[in-house]
């Protein structure tokens, strides 16, 4: 293609290239601090195990927060090729980098696997001798051999291998195209995105069941995987807006990413605010109407002990406010407005991941340990930024020789 790029505009700012390792170090330190705060502050009193439970749950929630950006990115990339989308080519490399750090984020699950393999049951109640568990539902799942530490580890490794494999495959094809400009590389990705997306759907569903849902091993919800998926997509799109705007603020991607791309990302944010609410409500209404004790347990801990305010607040801050805020196209085409909502949604996405995990610590909402948990959330963000810059340091910030690049640069939204 005859496109010429200014080399300056498609590279990370030089000052950012030295940041990855410090950021990763900061992220790890913040996570350790958060873990320590959880361990020491949340415990005590009659419930001596609570500190350990709080710290491990907090780590899992922040890990899911970190991983969700890459999970969303992988799906986004696959959908772009599945639909042969042209509009997104200019912003696709940023998404590809987010996708390609999935193996790094996945490594952060090793501590959890370590807990499981050493027989710790602070996080996963099922990871102990079934005779010590009163709930026959959990006992049944252990005795069936599904919730069992070795099998759990095997499955986790398979999930991470599949997701990382697909991410690396897509990323390498895209990088190869940077060199050769071969359209066949796009066609190959188009061909495989269909089968891969099915693998992705099953993997993410079971990943959500095993890693997050099984902290309440008696409870089950078949829509849970979709819930985690919807939340991940929301986090991904919001993070896309933030990263692209940050890069443009630093003088990069000039003339490549324009208001039309932001408008579309804004539409996706708006759509996934709605989709998240739809999925969350779908899960709630069936359980609420059925009113069967083994199903309501998950909501019982979320609607008692102080967590009820948190859960109800989530309806407002995760649905009502951003829904109305992103409703207008003028907001979605307004840079500062969209950036505000992107930051808002990343924050409530963290709240949502916290909502999925933390109430299961049992013992109600406690403010001081939650501050520790929040520090871990910042740690996850720092880790994400570090991983992102690490991966972005030596690759162009756009897919320079993608045959769909001209389509993306001239694309415009119709006036409604």
């Amino acid at each position, binding site marked *: 293609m005859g496109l010429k790029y200014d080399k300056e505009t498609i590279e990370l700012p030089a000052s950012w290239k030295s940041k990855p390792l410090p950021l990763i170090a900061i992220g790890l330190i913040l996570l350790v601090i958060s873990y320590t705060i959880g361990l020491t502050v949340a415990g005590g009193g009659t419930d001596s195990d609570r500190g350990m439970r709080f710290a491990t749950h907090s780590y899992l929630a922040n890990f899911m927060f970190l991983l969700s950006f890459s999970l969303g990115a992988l799906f986004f990339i696959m959908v772009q090729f599945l639909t042969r989308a042209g509009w997104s080519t200019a912003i696709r490399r940023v998404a590809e980098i987010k996708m390609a750090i999935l193996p790094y984020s996945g490594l952060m699950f090793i501590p959890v696997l370590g807990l499981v393999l050493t027989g710790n049951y602070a996080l996963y109640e099922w990871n102990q001798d079934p005779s010590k568990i009163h709930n026959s539902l959990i006992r049944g799942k252990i005795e069936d051999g599904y919730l069992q530490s070795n099998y759990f580890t095997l499955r986790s490794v398979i999930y991470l291998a599949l997701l990382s494999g697909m991410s690396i495959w897509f990323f390498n094809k895209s990088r190869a195209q940077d060199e050769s400009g071969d359209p066949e590389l796009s066609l190959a990705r188009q061909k495989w995105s269909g089968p891969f997306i099915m693998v992705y759907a099953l993997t993410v569903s079971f990943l959500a069941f095993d890693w997050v849902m099984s902290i309440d091993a008696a409870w089950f919800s078949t829509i849970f995987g979709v819930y985690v998926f919807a939340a991940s997509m929301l986090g991904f799109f919001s993070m896309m807006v933030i990263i692209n705007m940050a890069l443009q603020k630093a003088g990069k991607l000039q003339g490549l990413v324009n208001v039309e791309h932001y408008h579309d990302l804004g539409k996706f944010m708006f759509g996934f605010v709605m989709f998240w609410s739809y999925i969350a409500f779908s899960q709630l209404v069936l359980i609420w*109407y059925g009113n069967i004790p083994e199903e309501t347990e998950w909501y019982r801990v979320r609607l008692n002990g102080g967590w009820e305010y948190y859960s109800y607040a989530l309806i407002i801050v995760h649905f009502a406010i951003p829904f109305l805020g992103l409703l207008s196209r003028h907001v979605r085409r307004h840079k500062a407005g969209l950036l505000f909502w992107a930051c808002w949604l990343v924050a409530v996405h963290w709240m949502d991941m916290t909502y999925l995990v933390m109430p299961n610590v049992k013992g109600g909402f406690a403010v001081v340990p939650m501050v520790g948990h929040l520090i871990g959330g910042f740690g996850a963000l720092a880790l994400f930024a570090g991983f992102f810059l690490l991966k972005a340091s030596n690759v162009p910030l756009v897919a320079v020789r993608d045959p769909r690049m001209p389509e993306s640069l001239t694309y415009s939204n119709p*006036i*409604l």
Partner: protein
Amino acid sequence: MSDHKPKNTTGTKAPKAYGWMAEYPDEHKLLEAARKVRDSGYTDTDAFTPFPVHGIDEALGIKPTVLPFIVLCCGFTGLCLAVTMQYWMNGVDYMYIISGKPMGITPASVPVSFEMTILFSAFSTFLGMIALNKLPRFSNPVFTNPRFDRATDDKFFLYVSASDKYYNRDSVKELLGGTSPDVLDEVVEDGSPAELPKFVWLGALLVVLTGLIPLMIVLNIRESFSEKPRFHVFLDMDFQPKKKADQQTTVFADGRTMRPQVAGTVGRGQLEEQDAFYLGYDPNDLAATVKMTPTRLVSLQDGAAQPPADAPATQPPAATDSAAAPATAPTANATQPPAAAPMPAAEAPEKPWLTELPIEANEANMKLGELKFQIYCSACHGYAGNGDGLVHKRADALAQGTWLPPTSFHIDRVKAQSVGKIFNTISKGQGKMAGYANALTPKERWAIVLYVRALQRSRDAKLDDIPVDKRSSLEEAGSK
């Protein structure tokens, strides 16, 4: 359309002009021309293309529509209406308990509110689009030119209307001519008359009048009386060549359609009707008491013999627990010959209810009884049989005054009842209580009787009734 007159109408025959239409071979030329026309200040313009052209809105200078705001307002109206409606219906006007859910707005209200929002939004989008486009419009002068048909095929048209406030015939022609169109035509009125033809009016009138006929028929039927039988649409379905059970027939000598059981046969389920395990009483004892064999009952119904005048009323009541039977107890109807006058209920002979359980009083049966009791009985009678189940509590909370509380098992009348009688109550129901014979097998019903007996006994139990080795656990529990 518009009463605007083009400035130079040459000659008397010239038809009314509506503006200029330029034809282009591709969308790039069209976009270029559209921008030029827009920059010249014309706003009453339109483009016609075989496919949607990106950027044409901006090139034509079309302002964003107000439709989204109309839709937002209507959608919000729908939401408010749905919430108000549901709150009024279930929270105020008709407070009806549905599976113990709260009144008024609940999570179950969300789908309805969502649907109403969507409904109002969709309707306002559609109708708003129609109204803002000033539709329906039956004819448009742009169709006069046969070249325009290719707008759906391979040509691109730009139209500047004569109703534009800056319209000037010559300058527009010059402007459009300068964009190098393939063809430049003036849009003129076609020669056909503007009025609707008479036959259209006549046809519409006919349609309206015909449409009134069904309405008139309905009104007529509603407002008039008729002694004739109703109209039979399907005669062979209304009058089928068959006999119903209570009709007469000439086929059989006795004139009855429903046939008595053939001697020496056993109907399905009939054996059970002679077994105390299914009945709660021994049918042979009953026959002995009322001095009437089952065979005799059949022959009476058959009309073969007249009933003895003194047959039922003088029967001594069954000895067991008739005194404890409530006034509404199901009477032994089967023992009454049809010719006899109905007896006062209080004098109805009580059946010889079983006094011993036909099942073993072991742990398995007790567990079965407990399980089934908690599933089927406890909702009304309560887990301890005090007649204070959840249904009772909720009905009581409504305070409507018509609620008859469920019976407590610990009152003397029930305690005095024999097991067969309790079994019968479970099977056939009592008062407001429905029978549970369909839901519970006889064994389960007997198990419930066993459990009810255990509940009754536990009320007056003493420590001595408990086996020595179990007492300690009870004392432990009590001390906690």
